[in-house]
Every structure is written in structure tokens, then in C-alpha cells.
């Protein structure tokens, strides 16, 4: 299946939970936030929300910045 992750296409073998995707990407779930089809997910739901074919996922973290 194919999803869009941070604007780029990503091929995955099949549906995955958000937690599993973060593990696969080697990302620390405590330091990121995830938007799934335009809805920001609560961390408590990472184990249950499943990402399916065609979904849009954004994963963000904090970076240095002051303004603009």
C-alpha cells in the first residue's frame, strides 16, 4: 500500500499502527506529534490508530526557531 508521509509517497507492506510506523522510522514517540488525515492524534491513541492505503500522515518535531 502507499501512503503520503510528510508530503512524500511511502510504500508499506500493509496497514500499520502509528506506534509501529514510528518504530520503523526510528522516531521517539515522546518527541514527535502526528497528524493523520488532517487530525492531530493524541499520544494515547498511537497503539490503536491504524494507517491505511492512501492515508496522509504528517510527523513533526520541535526545531530551533524564534519567529517566521
Amino acid at each position, binding site marked *: 500500500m502507499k501512503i503520503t508521509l510528510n508530503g512524500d509517497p511511502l510504500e508499506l507492506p500493509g496497514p500499520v499502527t502509528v506506534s509501529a510506523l514510528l518504530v520503523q522510522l526510528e*522516531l521517539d514517540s515522546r518527541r514527535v506529534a502526528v497528524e493523520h488525515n488532517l487530525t492531530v492524534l493524541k499520544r494515547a491513541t498511537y497503539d490503536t490508530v491504524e494507517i491505511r492505503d492512501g492515508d496522509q500522515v504528517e510527523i513533526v518535531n520541535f526545531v530551533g526557531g524564534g519567529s517566521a
Partner: protein
Amino acid sequence: MDHLNIAGKTFSSRLIVGTGKYSSPAVMARAHEASGAEMVTVAVRRVKLPRPGEPRGEREESLLDYIDPARYFLLPNTAGCYTADEAVRTARLGREAGLSNWVKLEVIGDERTLFPDNEALLDATRTLVKEGFVVLPYTNDDPVVCRKLEDAGAAAVMPLGAPIGSGLGIQNVNNIRIIREFTKVPLIVDAGVGTASDAALAMELGADGVLMNTAIAGAQDPVAMAEAMKLAVRAGRLAHLAGRIPRRLYATTSSPLEGLVGR
């Protein structure tokens, strides 16, 4: 003690600093320390992902390796957003990443000046206040807009002193003064500070705090400038509280006129 109080949270420092543009994260950490700031702004951006087939090297350093969240209050910003929708989405993501409902709200309206889009800023403020956010909007130095933001539920107003990163200092002193009169929520001068005297002036005008990034990060010695800013904010605040003398056109003596030798 003279604390800064925003939305029921108190800070002993009235200086808020950014986390961008430093030559290295270690310099940033030392500058933060020297600034005495307790609140730091951070930007929300897509994580860097390894390209397909590219070997994953050492874990990339995270900004949070250099900012202790137990010591610094993280203020996520919506820097780089050009629409109310983008800013609202970014604020929601920032809340989830940082687990606090505070946001420095920016909706930029023009690329060259980075001036805010007032209309979109007000829209986004209303939406986020409804969702329970503590909204600190970066705004023009326009008293009417600041009053509207306060009416919309903003927890503070953060007018610019000059364009972001310009280092020009406070360009419209009288507007900042009028904003002080127009609003009851904390007034934070955000952007435009170039050197310590600019920060002191903001505080002398009655600002409750100053937010800056480039003035410290871009200085030749960011750690020394951070300390200068700490002292300037403190000095300006004390001068404001002390109440300055009125300006006069002519001199007034400060020594007694009686008892002069030879008269």
C-alpha cells in the same frame, strides 16, 4: 518579587528567547543560561526522514537534547505559516509535541517584511482560544489590532518593535505606549530588538516582557549578548517602576544655589 504573569503562570524573568540561528546547539544552551530566560520559543517542523535506501546513521541530535524542559518552558510557535488554517494545524501539532496548550501565534502576510496578516491572525486567535489554547499572538504595533486580539481572548499581545530579524529597535515608540494604554493583558515586544538599549527601552515604555532571537543568536558573542539582554530587561523594568523624571528643555541645577564661594 516582580514576576511576569501570563494566563496564571508566573515567570521571574521577563525575557523570552528563541532557539534559532545559533552557530551550534552548545552555544545556544550557554546563551540561554546567560539570558536567565525561563521561556523559550521553538518551531514546529516535519521530522527529517532517511531517504529510501539511505543507511540510517547516528541518531540525529534533537533540539530537546539541549533544552531541559524541566527548566525551560517551551513555547511552540507557528513561524512560517501564511494562513490561519496552517497556523491552527501547526498549533495543534505543537500542543501534542510539547504537551502544553500555549502557542506563540504567527500568521505572516508578506515574505519580505514578515509583517503579520492581521485578519488571519484574528481568525486563528478566535479558533485556538475556543479550543482552549493560551494564545500569544505576534502582531503589528497597531493599538486597534491589539485591542481586537485582547477581545478575542489572547492571553497577551506581542507587537513587533521592527521587522523580524531587522535589529532596528523600536520604530514606533508612541504606538507601543498607546498599546500599553489600550490593553490589560501582558504586552510583550516581540521582534526588532538589535541591542540591549532597545530591550531596555521596551521595558521603560511599560512592556511586560521582551521576546528576541536574532539579537542574541546573531551577535558576535551570543553568550555575552544574552547576559546584556538579561540586564537590560531588568534595568528597563526597574526604571519603568521607579518612574522617570519629566523631560525639560532647559537645565535645572542639582546643587544648592546658596553658599557659593566668592558670592
